[in-house]
């Protein structure tokens, strides 16, 4: 009977070699540790990667390009976590000072770089779970919306009256742009106490900066013909989800956005995040506006029905 370590190694190897599943620094650390310390796990790893390399036609002695990308991502993830921990350690000492001025910062910074005709942002705080924006462009000329798509390809718009997504469904993100001054967009999701989910650009797929966004109403990421849908169970958990779309005149670097987020507490509210984005990212972005839509992810549909 396979030992617990071997079972875990098998599961991790399956995940490691599966292009549809994410691979984190923690996964990589765990797998390497098991392989380093247990001969049976090492044997399994050697066999699994040898098969993978032969299947795809790569050199058997070295990681395939696919494995190399997994290894690179895991390294980046580990560095990012280390930097984030260092930043949070530093924040422990300055937070009490910053809290006193926080309200002022929010009020001032949310107005920065926003056109004069821009409407005030709707108030959102950590208790706000309603969806904002159906993806239609409003007076500011840009908008973001989200749609849930079931396994059987039935789409349901997430609106104020129906705010839930289900973990076993897919997420479709729609963007609208009528204004000329925001040709680029950067889209990511935030859940409390979790690492950001990068939708577009996605560093796991080579995306390093904002992507160009076509003019039009409620156009899904990936285009209307082939919309990109994100399996919610892949990189999300149940709970609040806020999807941010940062429209800008110049493309934003993914590393800049990641660094900005890493300096904030993992439970920061959407308000705080929005304020920090204007404060930190606007100088590099040229004309810049932050839009967001919030919802709640519930467990599987089968569980919900019971």
């Amino acid at each position: 009977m396979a030992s617990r370590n071997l079972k875990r190694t098998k599961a991790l190897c399956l995940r490691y070699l599966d292009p549809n599943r994410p691979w984190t620094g923690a996964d990589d650390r765990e797998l390497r540790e098991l392989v380093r310390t247990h001969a049976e796990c090492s044997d399994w790893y050697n066999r699994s990667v040898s098969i993978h390399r032969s299947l795809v036609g790569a050199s058997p002695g070295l990681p395939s390009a696919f494995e190399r990308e997994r290894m690179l991502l895991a390294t980046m993830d580990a560095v990012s976590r280390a930097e984030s921990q260092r930043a949070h350690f530093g924040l422990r000492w300055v937070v009490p000072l910053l809290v006193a001025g926080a309200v002022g910062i929010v009020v001032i910074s949310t107005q920065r770089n926003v056109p004069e005709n821009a409407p005030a942002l709707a108030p959102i705080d950590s208790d706000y779970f309603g969806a904002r924006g159906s993806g239609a462009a409003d007076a500011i000329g840009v908008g973001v919306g989200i749609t849930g798509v079931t396994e059987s390809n039935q789409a349901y718009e997430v609106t104020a009256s129906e705010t839930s997504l289900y973990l076993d469904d897919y997420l479709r993100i729609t963007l609208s742009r009528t204004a000329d001054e925001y040709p680029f967009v950067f889209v990511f999701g935030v859940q409390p106490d979790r690492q950001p989910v990068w939708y577009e650009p996605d560093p796991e797929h080579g995306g390093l900066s904002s992507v160009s966004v076509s003019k039009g109403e409620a156009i899904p990421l990936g285009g209307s013909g082939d919309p990109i849908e994100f399996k919610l169970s892949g990189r999300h958990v149940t709970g609040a989800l806020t999807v941010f779309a940062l429209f800008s005149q110049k493309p934003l670097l993914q590393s800049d956005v990641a660094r900005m987020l890493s300096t904030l507490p993992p439970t920061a509210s959407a308000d705080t995040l929005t304020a920090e984005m204007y404060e930190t990212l606007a100088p590099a972005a040229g004309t810049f506006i932050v839009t967001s839509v919030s919802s709640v992810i519930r467990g599987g549909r089968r569980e919900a029905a019971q």
Partner: protein
Amino acid sequence: MTDGDLLRDDARTREAFKRGDRWALTEVYRVYYPLVTTVVTRGFGGFRGFFNPADRDDAIQSIFAAAFEQKARLRYNGLDPYTAFLRGIAQNVVRRMLERRTKFMRTDGQPELEHKEVETAEAQFLDAEAIQVVRAFRETIQEPVQRQILASYFVDGDAEETIAKDLGITRYKVRKTISLLDRRMRRYLKQHGLP
């Protein structure tokens, strides 16, 4: 990389690397990856390199983890070639790995030729029949686009965007094809009783 040295010659990348910018770390990983693999596969001094994938991959990850630590990033002076600096880190990491373990043989011989190690490595973990079976998988892929994506994505490491552009299809189609290929590989292995 014999003439130029990215981190020594490119001040912008060097500064971004020292700050820990993701794009710069990614670039450094890609550019210096061949150097690191040379150290772990061919060795140095009396060490002839790691033999199996588990040890090689572990060493590669451990070397980059050490090189990307903030202290190590800041210690690089920007004047000497980074290749020499990274080689020093790599050798220290490998020495620590060897000290922790006793299963690696040290010899004073010359490094083996790489193609010989490669063939032996594959044969050690898969029996001859299994090697034949997995190598035959690619012959089952008839669709030209799928064959191209198998090679571009899994072997050459091209980004999805690049593949999509080269093939004149959408990125979503590329993703779908990668998923399809993955499913076909798993089904193929199952059919042949391989894990």
